[in-house]
């Protein structure tokens, strides 16, 4: 029974965990090329013809960034409650349970320790397929714990975000996760450990307006929607058409909001280089301190 459950929980990623059109063969939504799905998956969900980035399942993301066999999960020990007794078209606990069953995890996030090209990191990956990657108490707590544990273990933190924002079903408590995740990052800062965020499609609302944009370095994937307010909300407010490319990574890079737009293929190496360069300063200081101490002896 327990083993059966384990298999159910750990079954391979299903097709609907990305946003590419279904089918063995599919037509790329960006360039209309016919692509063999296996090729798309092998290419990290990037169209081999035009480079269009599809959303990527959490497990594939971990595989992309963590050195083989290095990922050790930290998250999964807690699950959401229903503090408001929230019912919309269905009760929140039911909605949660369906998502847990479907996606095989307690909430919209996976965190863990790993090495990335040999660098010890804490890794946070959000799952957009799970209730829109929305941040409630559990997502906030897992991020906070991952930040704190990374700080304690001397790891850099890498967060790959994908979220519709704060989770409405937990009301103001979800809003408070913005502050909670923010203050949890302070330990990393105090210990001089880098926090690098990678914004992927889509990152919006309360996640964008908290830890996601507090990275020491902020990267984004090509074509990702990154916003505070969603495009529809803005359109309804101002009753005008939005500019071309508005709220997409490239647009935000131009506006000075991102450090760079990095393709999925180059992401791991870029993260490794960035983390190494950032950490070099404190490593050098430690060494000098060591030399100083040796000289004093």
């Amino acid at each position, binding site marked *: 029974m327990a083993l059966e459950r384990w298999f159910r929980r750990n079954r391979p990623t299903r097709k609907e965990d990305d946003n590419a059109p279904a089918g063995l063969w599919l037509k790329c939504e960006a360039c209309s090329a016919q692509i063999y799905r296996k090729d798309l998956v092998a290419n990290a969900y990037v169209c081999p013809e035009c480079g269009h980035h599809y959303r990527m399942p959490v497990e594939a993301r971990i595989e992309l960034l963590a050195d083989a066999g290095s990922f050790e999960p930290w998250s999964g020990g807690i699950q959401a409650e229903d503090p408001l007794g929230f019912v919309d078209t269905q009760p929140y606990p039911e909605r949660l349970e369906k998502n847990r069953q479907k996606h095989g995890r307690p909430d919209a996030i996976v965190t863990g320790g790993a090495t990335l090209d040999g660098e010890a990191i804490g890794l946070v990956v959000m799952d957009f397929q799970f209730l829109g990657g929305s941040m409630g108490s559990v997502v906030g707590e897992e991020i906070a714990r991952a930040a704190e544990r990374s700080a304690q273990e001397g790891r850099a933190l890498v967060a790959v975000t994908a979220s519709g924002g704060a989770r409405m079903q937990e009301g*103001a*408590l979800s809003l*408070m996760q913005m502050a909670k995740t*923010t203050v949890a990052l302070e330990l990393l800062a105090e210990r001089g450990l880098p926090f690098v965020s990678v914004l992927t499609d889509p990152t919006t609302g309360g996640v964008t307006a908290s830890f*996601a*944009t*507090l990275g020491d370095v902020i990267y984004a994937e090509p074509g990702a929607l990154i916003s505070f307010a969603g495009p529809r909300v803005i359109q309804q407010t101002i009753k005008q058409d939005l500019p071309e490319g508005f709220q997409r990574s490239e647009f935000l890079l131009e506006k000075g909001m991102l450090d760079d737009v990095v393709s999925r293929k180059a992401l791991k190496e870029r993260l490794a280089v960035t983390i190494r360069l950032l950490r070099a300063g404190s490593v050098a200081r430690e060494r000098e301190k060591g030399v100083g101490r040796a000289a004093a002896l």
Partner: protein
Amino acid sequence: MPLPFEKPIEDLEIKIEEMRAYAGEQGIDLSDEITLLEQRLERLRRDTFDNLTRWQRVQVARAAGRPTAMDYLQGAFDGFTELHGDRTLGDDPAIVAGLARLGERSVVVIGQQKGRDTKENIHRNFGMAHPSGYRKAMRMFDLADKFGLPVITPIDTPGAYPGIAAEEQGQAWVIAESIRRMSRLQVPAISVVIGEGGSGGALAVGVANRVLILENAIYSVISPESCAAILWRDAAEAEKAAEALKLTAYDLLELGVVDRVIDEPVGGAHKDREETIRRVREAMLAEVASLMPLDRQALEAQRRERFRALGRFRDAA
């Protein structure tokens, strides 16, 4: 314009006025009848306001005539000296900030300002700040730290402004930075939700040691209208959404999101502005005094722990 549920109260008030006028004109003594009616009025007011639905409280929180941040600045503080500008982009009128005295103490105040009439509302962008407003707030946090002045933030906004320029100038980025900057304050910080606490736009100046809220104010992750539009695909379901979101003062006290509820005079803050302002002043004075013994590190640590602890979850099955 009375709120819909205030109509019976207003009708009775008019009736009492008419009876008084009639008694005066006719030179007859109707004081017994008037006293009876006044007692009835008092009961009606109390019954109505003790039993407001969440949606009705949303309406009170937004009611015309409810004291705004500027009303508190003028009524609860002395010598308000407004300071303008973010030093980069401009000056955002949706946030008013500056120096003032609260009792014997000099403080920094950062308030979200809705208009008191249509003209001012347009000028203030209905209290919805742009990135510039939050940059101004962060400049004030720096000032407060440098001179060791307590920070008070009256909160009253539908939310941070969702517009093209706001997004281009990094609305999400400044809100995140403002949350972080405020959490790092080395001085006592007190937030008072005086009307609407609209999501991230409110939290950006709400990371205080003590978070107070007026009895009929609200604080929510999303407006009931937007929530209804998303979950029920119909903004008209806002009443249902308001119930579901548990966004009233006592709901938030129960969730630990706020620390203290300041009771409003019966009939709501808009019916007795002076008394409301007096009560808010008393509460702020007491809260500042209670935080003064804490040193810088203790203040920052308390604030961090307060927000770090928020949320409800249990061990996974």
